[in-house]
C-alpha cells in the first residue's frame, strides 16, 4: 500500500494543533480544536481508500482497480455532516455561556471542589431577595451578602 506523505503530514498537523487547542481553557479554542481533530480523522478515513482513482461511476470498459474506493468518501460525508451539527451546537452553548456569565472559559464544577464541605445553602429558598433571573449581570449583585459564594466563605 502506498502512502500519500502530504496527506499524512497535514493529518498529523491537524491532530497535533487540535490536541493543543483542546487543552486550552477557552471554550472557543476547545471548539476549534475539536473541529481540527475531526477534520484530521476525516483525512485519515480518506487515506484508507488508497491512492486516488476514477470516480466510482460504473462503465463497462473500466477495470475494477481503476475506480476509487467509494466507501471512505461516503463515511466522510456522514462524518462531516455530524461534526457540522455538533460545531453549531457548541457555538450555541458557548454563546449562551457568554450571555449568562460573560466568560468564555471551562468552568470548574463547584461541587467537585468542596465535595467534602458542601454548603447547604439553597439560593432559591434562603436568599433574602428573590433570585435574580435576568440575563444581565449586575456588578453589585455579586457583592450582596445573600449570595452563595459569600455565605460559603463565611462558613469556612
Amino acid at each position, binding site marked *: 500500500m502506498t502512502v500519500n506523505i502530504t496527506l499524512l503530514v497535514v493529518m498529523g498537523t491537524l491532530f497535533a494543533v487540535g490536541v493543543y487547542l483542546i487543552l486550552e481553557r477557552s471554550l472557543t479554542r476547545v471548539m476549534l480544536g475539536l473541529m481540527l481533530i*475531526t477534520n484530521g480523522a476525516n483525512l485519515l478515513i480518506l487515506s484508507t481508500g488508497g491512492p486516488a482513482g476514477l470516480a466510482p461511476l460504473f462503465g463497462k470498459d473500466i477495470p475494477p482497480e481503476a475506480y476509487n474506493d467509494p466507501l471512505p468518501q461516503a463515511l466522510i460525508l456522514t462524518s462531516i455532516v455530524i461534526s457540522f451539527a455538533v460545531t453549531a451546537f457548541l457555538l450555541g452553548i458557548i454563546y449562551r455561556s457568554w450571555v449568562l456569565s460573560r466568560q468564555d472559559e471551562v468552568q470548574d464544577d463547584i461541587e467537585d471542589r468542596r465535595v467534602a464541605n458542601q454548603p447547604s445553602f439553597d439560593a432559591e429558598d434562603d436568599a433574602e431577595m428573590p433570585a435574580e433571573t435576568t440575563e444581565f449581570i449586575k456588578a453589585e449583585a455579586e457583592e450582596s451578602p445573600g449570595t452563595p459564594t459569600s455565605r460559603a466563605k463565611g462558613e469556612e
Partner: protein
Amino acid sequence: MNAASVAPLAVILPFIGAALAFLFIRHPKAQRTVTISTLALTLCLEAFLLYSAWTQGVQAVTLGGWPPPFGISMVVDEFSSLMLVVSTTVSLAVLVYAAGQGMADGDEDGPVSIFHPTYMILVAGVSNAFLAGDLFNLYVGFEILLTASYVLMTLGGTGPRVRAGVTYVVVSVISSVLFLVSIAMIYAATGTINMADLALRLDALDPGTNMMLHLMLVVAFGIKAAMFPLSFWLPDSYPTAPAPVTAVFAGLLTKVGVYALVRTETLLFPGDRINSFLMVTALLTMVVGILGAIAQIDIKRMLSFTLVSHIGYMVFGLAMSSLLGLASTVYYVAHHITVQTSLFLVAGLIDRRGGTTNMDRLGGLARLSPLLAVLFFIPAMNLAGIPPFSGFLGKLGLLQAGVDLGTPLAYVLVAGGAATSLLTLLAMARVWNRAFWRTPEDAEHPDPVLVATTSDGSALRTSRLLTDQPSGRFSGKGVMDLLPRTMVGPTMALVAVGVALTLFAGPLFQLSGQAAGSMLERTPYIDAVLGPGAGAGAAPDAGAAP
C-alpha cells in the same frame, strides 16, 4: 422473509414520532398522545422481535437490497432484542413521567415543547445502536443519540446546565472521534466495516495490529460506558439535567456503551488477551465509584456515582469471558437499566416533594409521604443486592463466575464486588436515614417548608398553603400538585418492572444464558449476516464450551 425484516421499524417509528411531535409543537396534548402511542407501538414491535429471536435464534436483515458485507445490515439476536425491549420500556415510563410533570406544572410552552421530539430521536438512536450490524452504523447510532442528548442535557439553558453541557459535549465528541479513527484504521487493515465480516478477518491480522485496534475501540466505548478512569465526566454532568432526562441518560446511554463493549469483546476480538486488564478496570470502576458515592451529600450526585460503580459489575462479567459471566452481565444490564432509572425518577419526586435533593436539608419524608418512601426503598434495596431482588441474583451469578475462574485476580474481583455491594447498601441506608427516617428538625440545615408541613400534621399534597411565603420555591408560582398521579404512576410501574425482573428471573436467566451462548459461539451471528456456513471458519470464544 424472516421476522428481522421488520427490525428497521424499531428505528423508523421513533423518527416518525419525532417528526409528528415537531408538527404538533404548538399542541402539547396532541404531542403527548403522538409520542406516547408511537413509543408503545415500538415496544410491541420489539417484544415481537425478542420473541422471534428467543425462539428462532439470530436473524439479520440487509437494508436497500445490497448483499452483505457491502450493504448495511441490522442484526436481531437475543442480546440486542432484550436490550431493545428493556430500553424502550424504560423510555416509555420516563416519557409518561415527563409528560406528567409538564401537565402538573402547566408549563408546556417554551423549551419544554422541544423535549418530546428530541426524546424520540434519542430513542431512535439507541435502537439503531442496538441493531447495528456494521461499525459505521453503530457510530451513526451513537451520534444520533448523543446529539439528542446534548439538547436534552442543556434544556432551558440555565447556567449550571450550560456548564455541565460543555463538559459533556466535549468529552462525547472526543470519544466519537476516537471511535471514528478506530473505524478508519480497522477499514484500512481489513477493508470492511461489517461486524460479521470483521469477525472473520480480524483473526487473520498481525497480533500487534489486532491489539491496537482492539484497545482503541475499548477506550472509545470505555468513555461512553463510563469505565474508570474514563468516568470522571459522568457525575459532573448528569445531576444538573432535569429529573426525567437524568433518569433516561442513566438508564440507557452508558448501557449502549456497555453493549458496544460486549460486542467488541465477544464478536470482534474474542479470546482472553485483555481480560486481566478488564478485570483491574472493573475492580477500580466498582470501588472508586462507590467510594465517590459515599462522599456525596446530594442524592442525584450520589446516584450518578453508584451508576459509575455498577458499570464495573458489567465489565466484571465481561472480563470472565465464560458463559455464566457473560449471561450474568446480560441479566445485570437489564436489571440495572430498570433499577437505576427508577431511582432517578424517585429522586425527581423527592426533589419535588421535599424541595431539594440535598441530604443535609431533607428529613421526615417517610412520615410526610409513605408512598414515596416505599418507592425509594424497593429499588434501593434492589440496587444494593439484597436477596431476593434481581440485583442479588445478578451479583450472585457474577461472583459465581469469578469463583469458577479461580485465579487470584478473580478472587480479588469477587471480594471487591461483594464489598461494593455492601458499600452500595451503606450509601442507600444513608439516604434512607437522613432523607426519610429522621425528623426534618434534625437536618443540618432544616428546610423551613418541610419543618412547617410536618409540625402541623397536615401532609400537604399541594403547595396551596405555602404560597403565602414571601420567598422560597413556591413564590410566584400557582398551585402545584407536589406528588401528581401522572408522575407517581410511571415511577410505580417502573419499580414494579424491577420487581418483575426478580419474579421472572428463571426465564430471564435462561434467555441471558442463550444470548451469552450464541455470542460466545460467534457462528450464529456470522451465519445470520453472511449466509449459512460463512461462520464455519470462526473460532468460538474461550468459554463457549458449557
